[in-house]
């Protein structure tokens, strides 16, 4: 394999990994605050369709991306009201959010199927972008890819190095104690849920504006769920989310290239199963491996909280 085609494959891996990275980072923060939002897939679709629709109608990708984040956050606000204010079951509400998001995005997007869009521009740095191998790998991406990497570092820094991050983790580990020393558990969780929604929206916008620049119903094809699995895989650490996302991006691209190369006689559908089967395998290895018991799941994950006074 020539260096040139290896670089091309690497670029597609980065592109496939980025939506997973955005969505999983957002969900990681949500889960660190003690909330389980299973609506990632629905929020991603809301982001994908609104990012696409706004970009096509206004011609501004920046506005499209902002609207995608806002759409994801808006759906997560619905989730927040139901689970945080009204103390509804988080699993059921998350599922409802996904079903609603699939339907709503199909409804909004019905006029945008098959419409072309200008993909996000690559940010070329004069001089260095033309370097062989390093140039395209490090300096030839669109803004969202850089943002996803920055967000990984940002989330890691926020959770471990800032006061806000400590409070968020305290709320997720022991809501009663955090409440009794005066932190507003509900408000912290609302902020986390909104952040998660916005990140899912960005993940969707990246899907419809860069990864596959188009809109199609249910175009996320389970990536929201894979992102949820990645959070478990990472044992709630941002650095490992990055690793996991690129690993899964790699699996996705591997099967695409295998299909392109004639599939070694394996039907295309069987190769397409790989990312899903890999998710199950990874979840099992994580749960059964020697490190089990040190997974660090937030202690209050999924438990509803109502202040007693």
């Amino acid at each position, binding site marked *: 394999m020539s260096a040139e085609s290896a670089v091309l494959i690497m670029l597609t891996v980065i592109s496939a990994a980025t939506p997973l990275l955005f969505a999983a980072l957002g969900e990681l923060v949500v889960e660190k605050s003690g909330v389980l939002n*299973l609506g990632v897939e*629905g929020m991603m679709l809301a982001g994908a369709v609104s990012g696409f629709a706004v970009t096509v109608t206004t011609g501004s990708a920046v506005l499209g991306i902002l609207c995608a984040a806002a759409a994801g956050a808006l759906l997560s606000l*619905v989730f927040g*009201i*139901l689970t945080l204010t*009204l*103390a*509804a*079951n988080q*699993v*059921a*509400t998350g*599922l*409802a*959010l996904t*079903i*609603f*998001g*699939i*339907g*709503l995005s*199909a*409804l909004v997007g*019905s006029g945008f199927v098959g419409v072309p869009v200008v993909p996000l521009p690559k940010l070329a740095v004069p001089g260095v972008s033309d370097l062989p191998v390093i140039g395209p790998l490090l300096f030839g991406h669109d803004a969202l890819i850089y943002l996803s990497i920055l967000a990984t570092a940002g989330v890691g820094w926020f959770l471990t190095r800032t006061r806000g991050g400590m409070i968020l983790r305290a709320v997720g580990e022991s809501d009663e104690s955090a409440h009794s020393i005066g932190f507003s558990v509900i408000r912290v969780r609302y902020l986390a849920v909104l952040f998660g929604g916005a990140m899912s929206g960005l993940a969707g916008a990246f899907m419809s504006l860069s990864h596959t620049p188009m809109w199609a*119903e249910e175009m996320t*094809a*389970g990536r929201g*769920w*894979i992102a*949820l*699995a990645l959070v*478990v895989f990472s044992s709630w650490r941002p650095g490992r989310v990055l690793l996991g996302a690129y690993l899964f991006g790699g699996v996705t691209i591997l099967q695409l290239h295998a299909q392109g190369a004639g599939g070694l006689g394996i*039907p295309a*559908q*069987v190769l*397409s*199963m790989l990312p*899903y*089967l890999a*998710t*199950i395998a990874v*979840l*099992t290895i994580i*749960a*059964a491996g020697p490190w*089990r018991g040190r997974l660090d799941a937030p202690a209050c994950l999924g438990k509803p909280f*109502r202040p007693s006074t």
Partner: protein
Amino acid sequence: MPFRPGMSFRIEQRREMFRGLLYLSPVLAVAMTVLTGFVLFAAMGHDPVLALYHFGISPLLSLYGVSELLVKAAPLIMIGVGLAVGFRANVWNIGAEGQLTCGAIAAGVVALAFWEQEGVWVLPLMCLAGAFGGMAYAAIPAFLKTRFDVNEILTSLMLTYVATLFLGTLVYGPLKDPAGFNFPQSRMFTESALLPIVLAGTRLHFGAIIALMIAVAVWVLMTFTIIGFQIRVLGQAPAAARYAGFHRKRLIWTCLLMSGGFAGLAGTFEIAGPIGQLIPSITPGYGFTAIIVAFLGRLHPLGIVLSGLVVALSYIGGENAQVEVGLPQAVTGVFQGLLLFFLLASDFLVRYRIRLVGAVAG
């Protein structure tokens, strides 16, 4: 207490659940969904009254419409009843769509193996294969959950994508109709592999009656047997279940195998009933919608019969409104999502009460 300035609302947990509201809240949720639909249709530039009429009322005005309602309700009820048993025990099988597909594949293979053969045993054999196919597929998350403590939500969902792709592999490959002009579909099943029609001139098949029988059987199981009791305790008080020595793993297996089996049987009825062959897409999301049906029916088998009918209306209403007033089919999904949102929101009133409290020292 009359409202005065300086007073505020306070939310308190009820000492006991408000039983009346427990059964009223699904009705409230349906009403709120209809109201939202009214606003939504108006915002989309349709006459809301006309659109709602074609969505919710006109499909029920003909015998054929009612029979179609039952055809759509049958799989929803069967799957919903099975899922509800698991949800009661905090076992979250959300991969019923995949188990349905797997059941349909197993039953379809039987139907095609005995293609053009006479025999009253073909259909029962298909049902057995279908139920077994669904159970076998649900056994994967059950095994991973009980053996390695892997979250069943994610595994059962991932397997749904795998099942759909597997069905695609089969109908594009080995099971493709040799005389089908290369279309991705199997041969049409022959007479002995098709469900008998209950009402002449409609598609209402015998499976709808079986769905009702399943609902009643599960109600008996959950209400009058020790297994039903153990499942309910496992969900409501896991610590008590452990103290009482209930076999947690066995109950998890029971819940997943039961819901998988019913989903597989529902898939069998779809291909042996309205569809009559294997095609790449055999379900309009019944496996996912059944989750809403289960909650709307209060996780109670008989309630699920009612909610299955209500949610089935959203399918045929969606189709009808598309034909009559040109509403996009996606409205169905939006309505189903809204319905569950409103249900979860109104359930708040079952557990909490909102009280007016006077201001301290005005």
